């Protein structure tokens, strides 16, 4: 922007305006101060007016910078006027315009509540390739790798799949492509997909989690919700996917649980919530499998206290899902009993009998 030009023209504009006004009031001015010429008075008036306007704009500008706004607003100028004890002059445009209520719902979406999102702007001095960061485009070889993986996940030969998963599990230098892969996977879990695809997606995520060089750690906030959804999803008709996802959650907890103290409790909360009575049977199945995968300690604290009640409820329903749930619960209790027997000389036979 040419900063200078408009400024000069602003000054001369005020000057021209002052000339016109003083010219109109020529007679009165001559009476009041015969010694001065109209041009002199006009110059004086212009200078005073310009100083005043500039100082007003300056005060308003201060308010704009204070609220870190992009543009000067009506409120800024009104605020500046009020702070000088002058009546506010301008009104917002919305107040004067008539709105057609009938058209309103279709024309504009309702205002949304501001919401917070977090991402890594930089990790150890490097910017991760996430959607929020402004980066150079991905290198060609990365792009090819991502395309190959996504195609295989969507439906590839079984040999090919094995190869790809092994690569995801062990390959070096995946840190650059991991964000793109994880974005693809998490997007995929949100859509309605076939069982096979979802299973591949979860397997791919699990392979990435286990590959330390892929540095999934930085994207855990994307990975974990996606995988947990696969464990306890309401409309998912596949036990295999739930089981695979549960193993993936357990792997994540194993890998990062010590580093992030809130990780395990948070997973536990999600799973425990999914056991509630009003949840569909599939969700409860996922929760039981998920808790079992976390290990005996999780089973002891999250599952055992309610196990008897849960088992009773499951038995009243004669349904394939309910039977699967009962079976999963039994497995969980067996795991716990095994552990308890190994840890303490007193077996908790009472509880097992009740639960079974």
């Amino acid at each position, binding site marked *: 922007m040419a*900063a*200078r030009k408009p*400024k*000069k023209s602003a*000054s001369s504009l005020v000057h021209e305006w002052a000339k016109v006004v003083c010219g109109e009031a020529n007679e009165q001015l001559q009476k009041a101060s015969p010694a001065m010429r109209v041009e002199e008075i006009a110059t004086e008036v212009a*200078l005073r007016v*310009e*100083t005043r306007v*500039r*100082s007003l704009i*300056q005060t308003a500008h*201060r*308010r704009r*910078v*204070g*609220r*870190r*706004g*992009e543009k000067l607003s009506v*409120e800024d100028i009104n*605020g500046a006027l009020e*702070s000088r004890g002058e009546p506010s002059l301008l009104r917002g445009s919305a107040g004067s315009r008539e709105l057609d209520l009938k058209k309103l719902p279709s024309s504009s979406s309702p*205002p*949304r*509540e*501001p*919401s*917070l*999102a*977090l*991402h*890594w*702007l*930089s*990790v*150890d*001095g*490097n*910017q991760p390739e996430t*959607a*929020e*960061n*402004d*980066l150079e485009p991905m290198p060609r070889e990365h792009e090819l790798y991502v395309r190959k993986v996504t195609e295989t996940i969507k439906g590839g030969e079984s040999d090919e799949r094995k190869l790809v998963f092994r690569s995801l599990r062990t390959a070096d230098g995946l840190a650059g492509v991991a964000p793109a892969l994880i974005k693809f996977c998490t997007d995929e879990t949100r859509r309605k997909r076939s069982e096979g695809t979802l299973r591949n997606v979860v397997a791919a995520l699990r392979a990435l989690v286990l590959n330390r060089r892929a540095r999934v750690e930085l994207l855990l906030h994307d990975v974990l919700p996606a995988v947990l959804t696969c464990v306890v999803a309401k409309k998912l008709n596949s036990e295999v996917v739930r089981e695979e996802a549960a193993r993936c959650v357990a792997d994540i907890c194993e890998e990062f649980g*010590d*580093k992030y*103290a*809130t990780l*395990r*409790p*948070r997973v*536990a*909360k999600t799973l*425990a*919530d999914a056991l509630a009575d009003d949840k569909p049977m599939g969700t409860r199945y996922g929760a039981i499998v998920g808790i079992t995968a976390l290990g005996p*300690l999780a089973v*002891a*604290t*999250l599952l055992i*206290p309610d196990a008897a009640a849960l088992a009773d409820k499951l038995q009243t329903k004669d349904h394939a899902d309910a039977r699967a749930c009962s079976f999963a619960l039994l497995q969980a209790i067996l795991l716990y009993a095994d552990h308890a027997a190994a840890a303490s000389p007193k077996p908790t036979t009472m509880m097992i009998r009740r639960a079974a």
Partner: protein
Amino acid sequence: MPSSSSILGRSLEMDDAFSARCFARAYEAFHHWIEGTIEPVRSEVKALLFPAFAHSYLRIVKGDEEKVAGAFLERWTEAHASHFPEIEELKRGDLERLRRSKFEVRLSAVAAELVGEYLTRTANVSMIQLLNEHARIEIVESFSKGGGDAVLVEDEVNTRSELKLGALSSSVVDARARAFSTLPETFLDDDDDKANRYAAALLARARRPADTVESTARPLLSALEPTALAFSLSDARDVSTLKPSRDARRLAAGFADSSIRVYRVDEKTRTNKVAHEGPIYGLSWCTACRYLLSCASDGVAVLWDTETGRALCRYKAHAGPAWDVSWADLSRGHVFATCGADGGRVFTTDRPDPVRILAGHWGDATRVTFHPNAHYLLTGSTDKTCRLWDVRAGSYCRVLEAPSPVTSVDVSPDGHYAAAGCEDGSVRLWHLDSGAQVASHHPPKKKIRTTPVYSVAFSADAVALASGGKDRCVRIWAAIEDGRLSEPHRLFKTKATPVFDVSWTQKNLCLVSGPLLV
């Protein structure tokens, strides 16, 4: 200060070209008025003429109006024959000494009053500003005989007093450490028994000596290869200020509609509060991340308890807008400061009125932050200076000159350096003890005036300085290491997030926050 150096409070910032024309006219009017005063006063106030003339000339030169400057010098040289050496300096273009010095003028109370009255009546803003900044007027009881000339003295504010910039005594630091160690150990605040029990069981297991978790004692992150976490607020067009707590678990957001929202990062919850009238301009978290201070255009500071979500106390701080608020970094002694058009104010939380009033800036004080040892505080102002204030004395002890109105300030954790970001996008660094500029960065000319630096922050180990602003970038300057700010050490661009705030946690994690503009 014994002398009264201020004739009137406020000044007007003007762009240079306009001010050049104003100064020529303003000086002429002032000169004629002085020539026309009656005798005993005239010989006294004549002493003000040369300071006014010399600095008017400097302003005109700054405005790049060569013709005006030449004509101005030509016209008035004769009238200032007694100041021949200084005029020669001006003609040579040797302006540095004049710029850095102040003129000392002795005036009787009557004469000073007359000058003040004249300048106020005629609203001669240019002369008021100029005399405020460059003349130190000493009021004497009686008419001084013959009225001496103005004496040029080196401005000694920056060397006058010794500073105690060292760290706090160990007892205070211990207290702070205790405050940290008493942070609650439960991770989930809601009443989810099962999850809590599981967490407790995990903790109990972790505490067993067999597997004490070493990974919890993570080392300090590198500030030169920084790890930065970005908080972006979407659907928040009218957000006016953002501040993450230093444990990075909460984000406080102030809005132009006078509401405040606090977001909890790990719970995805938020609370909504209103206690102000007008846009929120500043927020500050206390060290323990529980209490929050806010200030707004209504000139009030409010203390919040974020656990209960209640406003605890209101402090009437300023007549105009309160631009910024800052806690003193202490676990005991609840002290905070605010700033506004009428200067800075220091409060203790138990009193509704300020315990110190910090007056001395010629423009609005727009940013405030405490020195780490809390004996001093630093303000940034639209008068293009930062000032370091002795909190106990309530007076300023260092003046740091910035290239344009200051929009952000910070003091290094070791207490020896200060940094400021300015409205034109420049970043400057000073050594506090000497008041000398250490390093400076100016953006390329074409970007000037469009990209204020909203926030600067020293890393926890004082190795790097982070700055962020309207240009949607975060820059990391390897500040103290090589003493130059020629190129940013690292530059991180966001796609559509103007950076409202940068800060560093104790572990040196860089926290960046801003609204997501789509």
